[in-house]
């Protein structure tokens, strides 16, 4: 049966983004298989087609991907595992992963990668065997992205690859290297994914970069990352996270001002204060609407004590 679904999506976006077939299917399947999928003769299970579509930052309905009953069972189990990991119910996730390990086609790399990624997340959450967890993650990533090919700038990622690469960057001791890796992931997310997926996958990464820049006291880059996070949240039609982000921005702007003596001139200070207070007002109103009273009070105190502006109800 000719199934003109996933193939249409793959072919359209491959041409649109001017990517080679190898870039999309490398490590996942061979070019002949990829060509068959693109032409509409799918002979692979849902994890393969799903991963290919994800490397283009797209998503198709699961119903469109399913191959047979076994494939359906495995897909349900994968979704259940992801759900439990998201909820941080690691005990149930581990139990389900064992079940998945028993039914998955062990010779297929994507299943093994999903399994190892899940196991590593459980280990990392336990906190006792971090070394082994990171080893597992590297092994999992190597299955589809061999290390020597891994260092090019333009990379495409499936959701599992993205998760693994993010966890590895998060646990990277060298901060400059971690930042480079996270920027590469962000580049992929922002270039190929829609606004909702940018919020889902990109925001946690930008938030990590924000924390890093705060530690390094690099206010200029910190403000750039805060603006990036604010744009991601706003464009995905979300709001709750904006209270914290605008408040961080107000504080970073004030720290930056304190560092630069030349800005202390009378002409500059009023405008700077206005900008800071505006950030605080935005942060305050979002926190108030979202009933985040703790944050709201912090913003009020900062505005009053540091900026000399009283936010009135």
């Amino acid at each position, binding site marked *: 049966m000719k199934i003109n679904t996933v193939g249409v999506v793959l072919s359209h976006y491959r041409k649109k983004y001017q990517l080679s077939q190898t870039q999309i299917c490398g490590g996942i399947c061979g070019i002949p298989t990829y060509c068959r999928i693109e032409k509409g003769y799918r002979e692979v299970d849902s994890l393969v087609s799903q991963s290919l579509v994800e490397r283009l930052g797209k*998503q198709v*309905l699961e119903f469109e991907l399913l191959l047979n009953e076994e494939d359906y069972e495995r897909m349900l189990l994968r979704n259940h595992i992801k759900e439990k990991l998201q909820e941080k119910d690691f005990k149930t996730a581990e139990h389900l992963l064992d079940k998945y390990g028993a039914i998955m086609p062990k010779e297929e790399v994507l299943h093994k990668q999903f399994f190892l990624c899940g196991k590593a997340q459980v280990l990392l959450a336990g906190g006792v065997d971090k070394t082994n967890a990171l080893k597992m993650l590297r092994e999992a990533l190597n299955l589809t992205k061999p290390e020597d090919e891994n260092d090019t700038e333009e990379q495409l990622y499936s959701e599992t690859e993205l998760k693994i690469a993010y966890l590895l960057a998060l646990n990277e001791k060298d901060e400059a290297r971690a930042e480079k890796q996270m920027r590469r992931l962000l580049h992929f997310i922002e270039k190929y994914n829609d606004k909702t997926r940018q919020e889902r996958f990109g925001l946690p990464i930008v938030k990590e970069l924000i924390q890093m820049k705060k530690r390094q006291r690099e206010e200029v880059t910190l403000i750039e990352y805060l603006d990036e996070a604010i744009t991601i949240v706003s464009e995905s039609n979300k709001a709750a996270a*904006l209270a914290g982000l605008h408040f961080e921005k107000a504080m970073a702007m004030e720290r930056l001002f304190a560092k630069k003596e030349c800005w202390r001139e009378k002409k500059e200070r009023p405008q700077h204060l206005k900008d800071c207070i505006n950030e605080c007002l935005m942060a305050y109103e979002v926190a108030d609407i979202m009933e985040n009273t703790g944050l709201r009070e912090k913003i009020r105190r900062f505005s009053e004590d540091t900026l000399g502006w009283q936010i009135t109800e």
Partner: protein
Amino acid sequence: MANYRVGDIIRLTRLASGLTQEQLCENICSIETISRIENGKHKVKRETYHRLMEKMNRFPEKNYAICVDKDMQIMEERARFEGAMAKHDFETADCYMKLLKEKAGSSAPTIRYIRRESAFLDFYQKRITAEKLVELLKELAEEVVPGYEKFLDSDVVFPFMEQEIILLKRLAIAYGRTGENELAIKISKMLLRSLRTGYMAEWREHEISIIGDMSFFYQRIGDFKTAAEITKNVLLMAKKYDEGTMMEEALFNSAWDILREIRRGERQKSELADCKKLMRKAYYFALARNDKTNLKIFSDYYREQFGEEIEIKL
């Protein structure tokens, strides 16, 4: 990942179409199979699903299955058009609509989409009247969801597909513009009954937006109390699901409700300060989201009503 409850859609569509399982599965699959499919115990094959839906005069919506290469281009053009409409940038939307019309070809769903959207765009651009808008959308509804009226006063839940929901939601808005607000409320309630059975993935967004529209319909028939309650409800839901635009609009509408009650003498004039405060809250919320469309709407309205700027003087 979207959760597409195929069995539910088939069962609900069959019930809505008044078919028995035997009638539906004839020459397609066995009665045991259809029963298992409807109960979610059997994964339906794509081809079977299409044949079943075709027999009930439905097509699977929001689904890449209906795409050919040209359709992918149309989907992207649609996304651009919808982006411009969301920003109330009707000039740009006009350009995208022109492109869409050029690329549409003979695809029936695309042609219907164009008819629906261009009717609305023409109305916003004041090229057609509200009466003409109703006429165009009614014509379309008769083609796409024939006989939907029988579900208006019925308890039977009809599993409308996403594009049908959008069409009927738009029809309700159009009725609201011609003063037929009772009918608009009935249509909205019918859609909510369907959506709330949860057969469709990502239905919350539609639910909140339909409830938001209902608030306006109740206002226009003079039932301000229900309208205000609905607005409050929208705000709670928008907060729960973190829906930014809905939140700022519900906040502004709450302030609007207070202002009207003050002007009708149902509230003390001293409450005007609370009303202004609420409007400013909505404004700074929109500023936090850099929502230029609502920022302009809120500040223009505030200036018009109170003769002063909405921003706090620093």
